[in-house]
């Protein structure tokens, strides 16, 4: 299958390419014999420089597991299949790379992480400046202390804010410190995992704008979020994830204006400005996915309203290309 972002394939070489990446967790045979959690199934994505790719979906759909897989931070009972290739600074196969490569070349250098809940991510007993300076010494020993001030300015912090301890920073300021930390080594890929949890709308907008600015400077940003309004503000491309599978990928404007997959359409209709209609039912339990796909053809069928103009579920969960966009199963014919 072709990997995809919806962007023009000729546009530029990707920074990160996922090819049928799958992650399973084996549960203890004593508690649940033979059962496994399917957290990510056959995820294929491309992230290019200058783009913000938003991976959206409800909590528990596998978004954060995908992020952990890219950083080599999965627990020991995880089984990973497929490929995830990081192209810069040097090509690395993220799934098979040894820990020494992940620690030395990937985390921080190749992929900068902007974490969920920045204020608890920072060390409480040291000032923001001390933490930034430490990261600069470790990742950019050739750079001087000026880099700390420059990074602060770049993310919209005043230089004097750096003298504060994390508990003295507001949520928005802590978020900016975390972004500055992620940018220390100028990593080609910035991975933001629910970066706006607990922030109010003006701060969410501001954080999003900074991620957009980061992309305009040539980074590729993978934004993982459940907040569609936030994604809409900044994303150039959107991938929608449901029950471990990516069900739709395409340019953000087109997806928001004209969603193809009924799950995407349902999410948009659930927004206050979209009608406030919840999608009926619950997302399936991740241990049940195999059975659901076997019996129903796809994992969304039980919650799927009839979509006029769409073919009935083909029972084929693979992404199908159509006019530069990709959609699973419920493809238009």
């Amino acid at each position, binding site marked *: 299958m072709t990997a995809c972002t919806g962007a023009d394939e000729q546009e530029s070489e990707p920074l990160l390419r996922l090819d049928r990446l799958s992650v399973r967790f084996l549960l203890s045979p004593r508690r649940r014999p033979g059962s496994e959690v399917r957290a990510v199934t056959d995820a294929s994505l491309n992230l290019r420089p200058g783009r913000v790719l938003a991976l959206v979906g409800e*909590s528990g759909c596998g978004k954060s597991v995908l992020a952990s897989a890219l950083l080599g931070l999965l627990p020991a009972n995880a089984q990973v299949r497929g490929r995830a290739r990081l192209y810069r600074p040097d090509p690395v196969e993220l799934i098979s790379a040894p820990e020494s490569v992940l620690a030395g070349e990937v985390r921080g250098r190749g992929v900068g992480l902007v974490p969920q809940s920045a204020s608890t991510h920072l060390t409480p007993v040291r000032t923001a400046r001390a933490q930034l300076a430490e990261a600069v010494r470790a990742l950019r020993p050739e750079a001087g202390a000026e880099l700390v001030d420059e990074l602060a300015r770049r993310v919209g912090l005043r230089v004097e804010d750096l003298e504060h301890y994390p508990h003295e920073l507001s949520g928005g300021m802590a978020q900016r410190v975390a972004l500055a930390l992620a940018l220390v080594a100028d990593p080609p890929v910035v991975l933001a995992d629910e970066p706006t949890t607990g922030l109010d709308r003006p701060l969410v907008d501001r954080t999003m704008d900074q991620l957009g600015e980061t992309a305009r400077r040539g980074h590729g940003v993978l934004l993982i979020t*459940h907040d569609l309004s936030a994604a809409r503000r900044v994303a150039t491309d959107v991938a929608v994830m449901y029950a471990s599978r990516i069900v739709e990928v395409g340019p953000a404007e087109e997806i928001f204006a004209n969603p193809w997959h009924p799950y995407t359409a349902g999410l948009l209709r659930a927004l206050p400005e979209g009608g406030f209609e919840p999608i009926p039912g*619950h997302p399936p339990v991740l241990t049940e996915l195999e059975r659901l796909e076997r019996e129903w053809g796809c994992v969304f069928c039980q919650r799927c309203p009839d979509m006029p103009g769409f073919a009935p579920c083909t029972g084929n969960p693979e992404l199908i290309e159509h006019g530069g966009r990709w959609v699973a199963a419920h493809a238009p014919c």
Partner: protein
Amino acid sequence: MLSGTGLVAGYRKGVAVLDGIDVEVPAGRVTGLAGPSGCGKSTVARVLGLLQRPWEGRVSVDGDVVDGFRHSAPRAQRTAIGMVFQQPRPAVDPRFTLHEVVAEPLRATGRSEPIEALTEQVGLTAELLRRRPHEVSDGQLQRACLGRALALRPRYLICDEMTAMLDASTTAALVRVVDRQVEEHGTGVLAISHDEALLERWAGRVLRI
């Protein structure tokens, strides 16, 4: 009506978070409370939920002025007000099943009523009710927290950023549960959120601080 008049409250001596504000939550309606982070929205929730004594001003429930807060609040007043918080995970005992979470207020007040109608209303299946918090998503756990808040059929419900951590579909589903409670039982709701688009759609009237 659940109301606070001239509320002054805070955490550190001399630093008032609320500076003499008035809040009225009438029965049978959803009243929104909006404002940026750190403006005191959650302090309003704590004071009106009788979890924190204001330094000045008074709180009254259906015309009765509240004398005691926290554990010294009379049970009739405490149980008249249900609360749902932003983060469901720290709000539940991790050892309880979701069934026990929802039934806890009934157990604590010595009542034994079936909760099936309630759990169905908040959208929890029998299978989900057998699980413990670490086995469910934030959205499913928040459904249980809403069920718990409604278990004693409170006359007032305070939703402090109830949907801030939830995806769009679960948000819409929980708002629908609360709206039904307002229509069928005349519950007065204080919906606190920083999301203006949500409050505009949800609340008849929005207060700003």
